[in-house]
């Protein structure tokens, strides 16, 4: 008997229209848990480095986490994996909502799509009965619109739908997959879905998920809930309000946006607006949010309410929003919140990523102002930036005119435009647009996280260690009192010693060896989440979460029946993380790619940065070029990777 997981994948060949139910290897569960871990293994086995993102051979995997759908609060993640059209590397974008749990209840851990359908179709998973259905009548329709029509067509309001809009259909490099309450937005996975002519996946399930040791597992669930209750009543002092509690940043609930609007940068990630957050702005924006927001929303089995139903047109709920997408359009267009909420409704229906899309549009406006794009390129666009944003969004999702160029994101668009446009695509890591943030002094922890985070998104690697030192010793001492989450006492000492100024401040403190451990810990927790299928908002992202390295082994093992202790869990997660990197190494990624945007910090320290990267690679068991060594691969039972790396000349075989 398989516990927590169903033990079955759904293999869908869209070219041939064939559907198979395939048992997965229980050994893989032990080795890679589930979600991202097992996705990475499938990708390694089946998607070689020669496979183009838009090809029949590229897979699109919807992989639930090992505990997704179990009673453990916030286990609702689906990890969508493919080769990204934008980064051309392994993409893994997580979505919450209700899709993953429903898929499990339908009897599947993963949906693995290959090939390309000749016509637009959608996949209907009806509790174990699966079929491909015609979707031609949904062509061009919005993501939420499509989901609603599918529910009507199939006659069941409880069906969960993940769908693409125009952007996905037209293979926009930053197209998202939307499922109402949540989305897989980053790295252009919607474009892969569109390339496969798969408009949507609809799922309804009525089967059981079993757990291995029920009473013990339920005790962990209850502990988590009790902890969440207490933690929510006791927000952390001295940090900005949106991250004082649990969950993803509480953008829907908290109206105070001083921190984002004054510290993040506006337009094409350029302008810092100190003093922007006035009383008048606060009142106006609070009013906007209060009138547009009809309800705070949770994901499957999670007591947090990080999302909101937003109403900006005649319907009662126009769309669902979460987190920083609240501000990306507003700040990209140098406009106000009202505009941001309105255009986000259109953008959600078209299905685009709320980081990359506004950044790309602001980039276009900047190129025009710099004379690189001409009146001919943007013939007919309005004079105001809001109007231009709507105009650009429309052309991008249809790939019309300049929109066709911009639809590839800032990096590839700049390559095509030439004429010095590259200098304007300044906010990318590995060709992928980043949060609009530009700072003064290099922070060694963030340097390593930005450089090496393979999700290529800072929020998917940062978290459990405070972003900045606390000003006074008393505050720091107070903070560490109940900081049981750290892997070791050392972490508390580093935090205690970390000062805002002086010798023990950034960029020289924490020192490289401590920095490596802090980064490794934070990253490790994200990889646990992405494999177990729990939301980072209750685990790796906030300070002092209910789940941590000390309770995960017992939780996972009582749920899934896999024997685990802290050491073996750390070992397993290292294996998963290394296999993700190996997928990318095989695709050509090397040390030269591990770098933050050039202008992320004003004060850079090339020597220190090289030292940090050296130390981190060594800590991780990678060589100086960032390639995991043969010894590391063998230690992690990744011998099959070692063999292929030697065969391909990526690593030299050791002397016999």
């Amino acid at each position: 008997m398989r516990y927590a997981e169903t033990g079955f994948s759904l293999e869908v060949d869209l070219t041939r229209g064939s559907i198979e139910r395939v048992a997965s290897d229980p050994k893989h569960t032990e080795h890679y848990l589930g979600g991202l871990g097992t996705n990475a293994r499938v990708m390694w086995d089946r998607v070689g480095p020669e496979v183009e993102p838009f090809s029949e051979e590229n897979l699109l995997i919807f992989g639930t986490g090992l505990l997704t759908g179990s009673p453990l609060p916030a286990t609702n993640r689906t990890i969508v994996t493919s080769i990204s059209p934008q980064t051309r590397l392994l993409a893994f974008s997580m979505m919450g909502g209700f899709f993953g749990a429903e898929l499990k209840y339908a009897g599947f851990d993963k949906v693995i799509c290959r090939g390309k359908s000749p016509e637009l179709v959608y996949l209907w998973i009806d509790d174990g009965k699966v079929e491909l259905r015609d979707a031609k009548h949904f062509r061009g329709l919005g993501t939420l619109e499509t989901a609603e029509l599918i529910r009507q067509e199939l006659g069941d309001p409880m069906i969960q739908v993940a769908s693409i809009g125009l952007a996905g259909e037209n293979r926009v490099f930053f197209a998202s997959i939307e499922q109402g309450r949540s989305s897989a937005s980053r790295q252009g996975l919607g474009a892969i879905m569109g390339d496969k002519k798969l408009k949507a996946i609809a799922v309804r399930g009525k089967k059981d998920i079993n757990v291995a040791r029920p009473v013990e597992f339920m005790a962990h669930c209850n502990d988590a809930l009790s902890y969440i209750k207490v933690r929510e009543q006791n927000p952390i002092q001295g940090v900005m309000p949106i991250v004082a509690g649990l969950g993803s940043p509480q953008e829907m609930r908290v109206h105070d946006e001083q921190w984002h609007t004054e510290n993040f940068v506006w337009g094409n990630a350029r302008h810092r607006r100190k003093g922007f957050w006035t009383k008048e702005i606060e009142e106006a924006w609070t009013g906007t949010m209060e009138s547009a927001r009809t309800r705070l929303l949770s994901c499957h089995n999670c007591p947090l309410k990080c999302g909101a139903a937003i109403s900006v047109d005649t319907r009662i709920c126009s769309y669902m929003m979460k987190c920083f997408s609240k501000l990306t359009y507003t700040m990209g267009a140098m406009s106000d919140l009202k505009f941001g909420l309105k255009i986000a409704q259109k953008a959600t229906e078209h299905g685009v990523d709320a980081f990359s899309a506004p950044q790309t549009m602001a980039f276009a406006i900047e190129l025009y102002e710099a004379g690189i794009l001409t009146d001919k390129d943007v013939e007919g666009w309005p004079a105001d930036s809001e109007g231009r944003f709507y105009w650009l969004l429309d052309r991008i999702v249809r790939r019309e005119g300049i929109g066709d160029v911009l639809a590839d994101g800032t990096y590839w668009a700049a390559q095509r435009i030439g004429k010095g446009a590259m200098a304007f695509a300044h906010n990318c890591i590995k060709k992928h647009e980043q949060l609009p943030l530009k700072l003064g002094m290099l922070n060694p922890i963030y340097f390593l996280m930005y450089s090496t985070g393979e999700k290529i998104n800072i929020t998917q690697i940062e978290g459990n260690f405070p972003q900045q030192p606390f000003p006074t010793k008393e505050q720091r001492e107070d903070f560490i009192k109940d900081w049981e989450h750290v892997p070791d006492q050392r972490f508390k000492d580093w935090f205690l010693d970390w000062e805002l100024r002086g010798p023990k401040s950034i960029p020289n403190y924490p020192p490289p060896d401590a920095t490596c451990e802090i980064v490794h810990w934070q990253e490790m927790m994200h990889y646990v989440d992405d494999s177990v299928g729990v939301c980072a908002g209750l685990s790796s992202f906030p300070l002092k979460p209910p789940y941590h390295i000390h309770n995960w082994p017992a939780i996972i093992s009582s749920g899934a029946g896999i024997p685990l202790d802290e050491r073996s869990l750390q070992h397993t997660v290292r294996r998963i993380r290394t296999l993700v990197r190996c997928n990318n190494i095989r695709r050509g990624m090397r040390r030269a790619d591990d770098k933050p945007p050039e202008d992320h910090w004003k004060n850079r320290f090339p020597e220190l940065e090289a030292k940090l990267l050296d130390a981190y690679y060594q800590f991780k068991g990678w060589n100086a070029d960032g390639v995991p060594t043969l010894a590391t691969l063998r230690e992690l039972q990744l011998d099959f990777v070692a063999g292929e790396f030697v065969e391909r000349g990526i690593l030299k075989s050791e002397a016999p």
Partner: protein
Amino acid sequence: MKSTNGKTVKTIKIDVAKCNGCRACEVICAAFHAKPKYSSTNPARSRIRVIRDQVADVYLPVYAGEYTASECAGRDKYVIDGREYDECAFCRASCPSRDVFKEPDSDLPLKCDMCESDPTIKTPKCVEWCLAEALVFEEREVEDGKAPSVDDVDIGLRALAGVHGWPKVMDAASRLGGAGTGKKS
């Protein structure tokens, strides 16, 4: 405890405005009623159902009530605060016209039992797991209707006698010990 005219009933107050639609109530209900307890979860087996319509912003927790063998005529619509609800959605019955509140494999009806169990727990699990406090447990005194008069009992007995004859009714009454406890002597 019991007053002369009333009784204490276990109830759940449902504040629809506070529901964030997370379905934790369904998850824990299914797990609690699994056999062995907590060994599995499956919201389709839950005795509470959150009726959700994301676009209409409807999030409505409904509990499973009595089984009914026949359909009713309840096909009307309610509009509350601009949101349209099927009358059917509010209904607690496990009935032939829809597939909610039925065991998915056997179609046997499901009914909320307020998590009656041994040892007893005070608060139903769905309430305990609803941190949004959309579900609140309340013990309430309710009027027990009018206490039946002796005349009412006469009518009932006469009807029974009409069917079975007096000797059988008397026989049954004495066999039950006249205490009306329903327990066999």
